[in-house]
């Protein structure tokens, strides 16, 4: 982790009609950092994530991602980030190699480079013999790991992971986090959301959102100290839903 800022958010506000989904967010994320973005369902995480990845325009605020302005240069942002989520990652009716070729192509990579990286990627997963298999025929854990490597195939500055490990077995979950560590150690920033509070402990820093605001942001160790508890989960339960409203 370094002190170079790769995401800078100043006074981010996003409104949908009279509803304020993001209420004055202010934070920075550094190069090579693993940044956990936590919050209750409906706290506004997805809205912020969409703005940071250039898919949605902020109502107010100055947001710079990978050196580009989120309002004026969303297309540049998209080219310099990777994105992966649990629900949709790869095309089930294409083979492993076809999926890699497709994503590489979308990011404008040269065919030769895609082929080179495909080889090393499959090797890294000890997966060489599966290159021609359909994605739909692969076990979930393998698909998730592959989806992650495809998301960083073009060596983006930042990769956004939206609940990447939902439902996978504990061994795969750990292999996945080791890939995250390796990626971050290589200088790519990892921005991750998760409902597994024990996973928050893997992050360098975590932020916790509640009702559109960031109510805590620090290292897991510092947060636990501040709230005098043993786990990030206890911190989360204390502050993520102050009103404890139904739903």
């Amino acid at each position, binding site marked *: 982790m370094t002190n170079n800022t790769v995401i800078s958010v100043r006074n981010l506000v996003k409104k949908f009609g009279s509803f304020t989904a993001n209420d004055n967010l202010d934070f920075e994320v550094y190069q090579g950092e693993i940044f956990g973005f936590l919050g209750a369902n409906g706290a506004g995480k997805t809205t912020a994530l969409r703005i940071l990845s250039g898919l949605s325009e902020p109502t107010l605020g100055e947001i710079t991602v990978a050196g580009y302005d989120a309002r004026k240069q969303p297309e540049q942002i998209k080219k310099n980030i990777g994105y992966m989520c649990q629900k949709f990652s790869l095309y089930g009716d294409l083979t492993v190699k076809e999926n890699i070729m497709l994503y590489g192509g979308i990011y404008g990579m040269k065919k030769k480079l895609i082929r080179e990286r495909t080889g090393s990627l499959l090797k890294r997963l000890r997966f060489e013999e599966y290159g021609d298999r359909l994605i739909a025929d692969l076990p979930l854990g393998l698909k998730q790991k592959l989806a992650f490597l495809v998301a960083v195939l073009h060596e983006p500055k930042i990769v956004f992971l939206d609940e990447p490990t939902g439902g996978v077995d504990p061994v795969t979950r750990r292999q996945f986090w080791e890939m995250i560590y390796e990626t971050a150690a290589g200088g790519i920033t990892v921005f991750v959301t998760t409902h597994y*509070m024990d996973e928050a402990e893997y992050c360098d820093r975590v932020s916790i959102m509640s009702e559109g605001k960031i109510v805590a942001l620090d290292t897991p160790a510092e947060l636990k100290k501040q709230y005098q508890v043993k786990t990030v989960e206890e911190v989360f339960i204390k502050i993520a839903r102050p009103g404890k409203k139904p*739903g």
Partner: protein
Amino acid sequence: MKKAVESSGTGKKFGATQALKDISFVVNEGEIFGFIGPDGAGKTTLFRIITTLLLPDEGEMKVLGLDCRSGYKELRKNIGYMPGRFSLYQDLSVEENLHFYATVFGTTVEENYDLISGIYSHIEPFKKRLAGRLSGGMKQKLALSCALIHKPALLVLDEPTTGVDAVSRSEFWEMLKKLKPYNITIIVSTPYMDEAMKCDRVALIQDGQILSVDQPEKVRDGFSRKLFSVKAPEKYKLITALRSYPGISTAYPFGDAVHVTFKDDDFDDALYDYLDRMGITDVKITGTRAGIEDRFLELMGSKV
């Protein structure tokens, strides 16, 4: 103790895929019994067999004293089932859904209201709202109310907390605990290992097979090795170095630490020297207590 579910040697195939293999367990009346395992472990297939929605290929499955094949008509009256996917009528309102389910089971909302009041009261202010327009947490509460409204003897919940935030998850378990006085047997599945501790007994399930069945504390304490927690600021370097150390048996990241077992069950100063040579500083090694996930990893490892 009376048995609510008794499975011996249950097996199920889909084409060439063996979804369940030789599944044997007993659920006692009034228990909260958890099936803990990842996606694809076979939890949903098993729950469909228990709820008589699917027939097993092999073995015997007795539910509430009845055979799941011959007793299905009687069983369906006495089981409440909450499937993993939200399956209520999206174009009916909250209260219409509830009345519909009560009527289908030949009862009324008034008759069993005391059973659901603790759960339903959270969503009652929104009773005129269409079910399809509720938030995730509210849908979950409505689905649970509908599954309970006929006062079933057995409640089957398939991943009720998946995708739900930690606060709502802990609330959901509180609601289940409050059903204890009604002596309803509850079978629940989850991919979250930490939820195992909230059950009376659990079965760890993986690849269609049960790895272990017991009280969660006993499953956890079944961990057979000495476990150590190793910490250092540079986590990735630390894991890689530990993996290539000859004395290491297993090394898994756990939060800000790496959980490690040694081939000789213990380590000596050579490990500190080795890590120092690898350029890893500020190393802290302490003995630690295994959690249920450590045990799951151990059982998975021994199976491969």
